[in-house]
């Protein structure tokens, strides 16, 4: 059990760092996809489509085995965070897109009427309104990411599943550790999703 809790801490860390990476990168993709030039939008949209439509596990393997070959040797957890963050950034970019699309056109027109520069229009008018809309949806991806962290066990990150496996390997008891891990996932993700729903009701009114 202490080992599994240690694994839980790693799992939580991976989720938090992965979320931060995906929130930041997602915004980058979302803004890049609105760029006026095709030379920006095409490569980004092909990249986003590709990452979205291929399995996270294989992407993790790719990063884990390939990065050291390119001279980038990271700890497994860092590799995992990069993988999770990249994968989920393609989802969060969709969320930002919808959030930005949801800002009423009048707001854009008002910014034009005040002859605000482009950058100010984004930072002072559009994004603050978009962020309010995207928070609940981003929260859903945090939960989804939390449930995907066991994949990191595949690249030797000592998360909950990894710990459960190593306990099983020494005690030959599979039932208990894996059941505990499964229940921990439900116990954490369910209240979180309730919390998010409450947050959603407060924000989207």
């Amino acid at each position: 059990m202490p080992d599994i809790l240690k694994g839980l801490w790693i799992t939580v860390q991976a989720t938090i760092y992965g979320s931060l990476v995906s929130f930041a990168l997602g915004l980058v993709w979302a803004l890049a996809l609105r760029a006026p030039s095709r030379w920006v939008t095409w490569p980004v949209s092909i990249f986003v489509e590709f990452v979205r439509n291929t399995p996270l596990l294989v992407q993790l393997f790719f990063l884990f085995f390939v990065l050291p070959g390119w001279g980038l040797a990271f700890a497994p957890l860092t590799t995992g965070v990069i993988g999770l963050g990249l994968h989920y950034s393609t989802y969060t970019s969709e969320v930002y897109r919808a959030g930005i699309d949801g800002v009423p056109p009048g707001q854009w027109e008002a910014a034009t009427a005040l002859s605000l520069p482009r950058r100010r229009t984004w930072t002072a008018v559009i994004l603050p309104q978009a962020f309010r809309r995207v928070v609940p949806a981003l929260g859903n991806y945090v939960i989804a990411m939390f449930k995907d962290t066991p994949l990191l066990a595949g690249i030797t990150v000592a998360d909950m599943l990894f710990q459960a496996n190593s306990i099983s390997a020494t005690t030959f008891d599979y039932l208990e550790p894996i059941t505990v891990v499964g229940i921990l996932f439900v116990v954490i993700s369910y209240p979180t999703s309730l919390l998010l729903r409450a947050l959603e009701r407060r924000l989207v009114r």
Partner: protein
Amino acid sequence: MTGALWQLFFEGLWITVQLMIYSAALAAVVAFGIGLARTSRFWIVRFLSGCYVEFFRGTSALVLMFWLFFALPLLGWQLVGIWAGTLALGLSYGAYGSEIVRGAVQAVAPAQREAAIALSFSPWQRLQKVILPQAVPEMMPPFNNLLIELLKGTALASLLSIGELTFQAKLARLSTGQSAQIYGIILVLYFAVAFVLTRIMRVLERRAKASIGRAVPKGEGWFSRKLPVEKQGPEALATGGKP
């Protein structure tokens, strides 16, 4: 890359496709069963199906798969790898799918249900002749997303040493050591399958919508992420991608 290696990949691809078809079939059964149960008149049915959904959405598909494969035998039930994979994927993606079914059924205009009651249709007739024909076309785009998620989920089965695509890639990597190429190739293979699936689902969506007299706007590019016009805005936020 030798011919033998390619053969290894295609064997793996075949198992991946099989795994996907089986678990998609199971997920569809679960999705409709649980999704319709959640709209039931009886609170106990709604409650139990709600518990199912919260449980299977709350836990990780991979942990479930491990549990079925490693823990269940200790309770006296040994599953073959591919069935453990199918069961885990079908049950958990079915839970996501049931929310899609529930949403689509509840989105059918209430007047339609009332009209069916007025015509004294039985509950079963109501469902089969009025509700579902209108709800199913609504379900197609989110089901498409879910199917891609399921395809990607099949890669998890490699950790149970089922010889699907990811597992074969692992073998190939161990024997040749060319990680970048091998994982690059299978990423492209997964993408190709996902791409074909999306195209097929779009055709099905178009047909389903046409069958109830609603055309889908055409002219979206092959790589376009744009949803049909009616789906933009806050609603797209709710369904935009991963369940």
